[in-house]
């Protein structure tokens, strides 16, 4: 049985179509990334999945349970890490777990039985009695992750789990998520961080304006869409430079003030540009950012 099945799901608000005929599946134990800029429909997809919004058309099932018809049953098997912190700031770390466990019908004893291992998992053992307001951003996010695990869910839904965190905090979250995947949990992750998607996701759906524009394993997507080295050119007049390197590049994209040259033989491009004063050149392997730029004609960062 698949963990998540979306078939032709459409959702509009007024005249604005936010999710447009979306279909995808997530296999048990898999990490699927929904990748797209703000407004691509990522958050709406997670709301639809939880039964917090009703689709205009299409079918959604979670472990075979139809949503939203039986969303409450489905939510019993889902843990959610929301985009915005919704912890109870008046409460301590421990109290947050207790209160949230009760929302799943757990008794105080049941919550207390699982709390120590959750706190250890979230590296918050020493913070059990600290108030949430005293925690750093990374700690709050880890507490949200621990809280999402309280009902021992098979599926974790994470809406931009590392947005707004510093790099260290972000790496710790990634490491924790990988350990969850190693334990066989299924993860649906929405993100606009390419690095996050590349590191964690088995498979990616690239979204734009509520539509799926590409799907595949991160490296397969990169090979398929780009498949050659990239030379980034900063400075100079991009239009003049473009004609200079055109014969040597497979494709050239201009984004902001940066010129991206996709070249099977980057050395030739570099040779051409070395003569031009005031340029900064960077040769690198292709990444998901390039895929996104290729597919949508613009950079992901927003």
């Amino acid at each position: 049985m698949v963990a998540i099945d979306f078939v032709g799901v459409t959702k509009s608000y007024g005249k604005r179509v936010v999710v447009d005929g979306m279909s995808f599946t997530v296999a048990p134990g898999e990490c699927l990334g929904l990748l797209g800029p703000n407004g691509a429909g990522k958050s709406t997809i997670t709301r639809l999945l939880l039964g917090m919004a009703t689709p205009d058309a299409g079918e959604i099932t979670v472990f075979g349970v139809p949503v939203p018809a039986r969303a409450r049953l489905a939510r019993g098997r889902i843990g959610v890490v929301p985009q915005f912190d919704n912890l109870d700031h008046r409460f301590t770390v421990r109290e947050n777990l207790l209160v949230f466990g009760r929302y799943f019908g757990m008794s105080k004893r049941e919550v207390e039985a699982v709390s120590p291992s959750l706190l250890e998992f979230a590296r918050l053992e020493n913070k059990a009695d600290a108030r949430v307001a005293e925690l750093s951003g990374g700690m709050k996010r880890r507490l949200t992750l621990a809280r999402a695990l309280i009902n021992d869910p098979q599926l974790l839904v994470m809406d931009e789990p590392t947005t707004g965190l510093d790099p260290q905090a972000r790496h710790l979250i990634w490491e924790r998520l990988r350990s969850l995947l190693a334990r066989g949990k299924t993860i649906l992750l929405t993100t606009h961080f390419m690095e996050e998607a590349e590191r964690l996701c088995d498979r990616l759906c690239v979204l734009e304006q509520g539509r799926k524009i590409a799907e595949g394993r991160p490296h397969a997507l990169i090979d398929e869409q780009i498949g050659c080295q990239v030379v980034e050119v900063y400075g100079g007049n991009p239009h003049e430079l473009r004609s200079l390197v055109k014969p040597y590049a497979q494709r050239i994209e201009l984004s902001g003030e940066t010129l991206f040259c996709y070249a099977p033989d980057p050395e030739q491009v570099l040779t051409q540009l070395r003569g031009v004063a005031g340029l900064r050149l960077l040769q690198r392997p292709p990444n998901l950012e390039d895929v996104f730029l290729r597919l949508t004609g613009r950079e992901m960062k927003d």
Partner: protein
Amino acid sequence: MTEGYMAVMPANAWNWVAVWRRNYLAWKKIALAAVLGNLAEPMISLFALGFGLGIMIGRVEGTSYVAFLAAGMAAVSAMTSATYETIYSTFARMGGERTWEAMLCTQLTLGDIVLGELAWAGTKSLLAGTAITLVAATLGYASWPSLLYALPVIALTGLAFASLAMIVAALAPNYDFLVFYQTLVLTPMLFLSGAVFPVGQMPGAFQQVSSLLPLAHSVDLIRSVMLSRPAESLGLHVTTLCIYAVLPFFLSAALLRRRLMR
């Protein structure tokens, strides 16, 4: 659309307790200040209005003005505490504080959440009402055994006003809207319901309006209990308050579904 209404209904008879307990835990942290406030507020109004105005007014409906007012104040405090809890604290929890957003990711339905919040607001009004009746009984303006009957009425009054306020919270685009409810609905109701002067003092048309207001029914009930008078039309008063508690629950839950679960 049946699934839509399922979400609005409580999932079972006990799920709401988790929401009530969350609010109780938050309240416990500030309980001392809250209880002192509950006690101080009725004492201030009883002393100021009761004794100040009472000297000029003398006896009302065959009793001292302070005793007359104390019963009215018990109903009013149930109304205001349930209303404030709902339109300020609950409104914050359903919006900016994102407490409801977290709850909606769990085994709770929207109906469970609304019911838990109403029960909590009812509890807050019971606390406020208990404080005022204790003050009144201590000062000799109500008999101690009468409190036993007054408290359930106070709790029911709280539920009715919490339910009504939940509709307001469901419709309110912002905090200003909530202030309108206070000034344009609750304040007139306070004066039309016989809380501070007898309804019989008003022109006939106002008396008819009064008979439709939940606070008027609550005041009548609480006053006859606290002043140990024979209760007239007990069934009508209780039924009216129950209707005000139940119908707005379903209406507010449906409105909240439109607001939060689009």
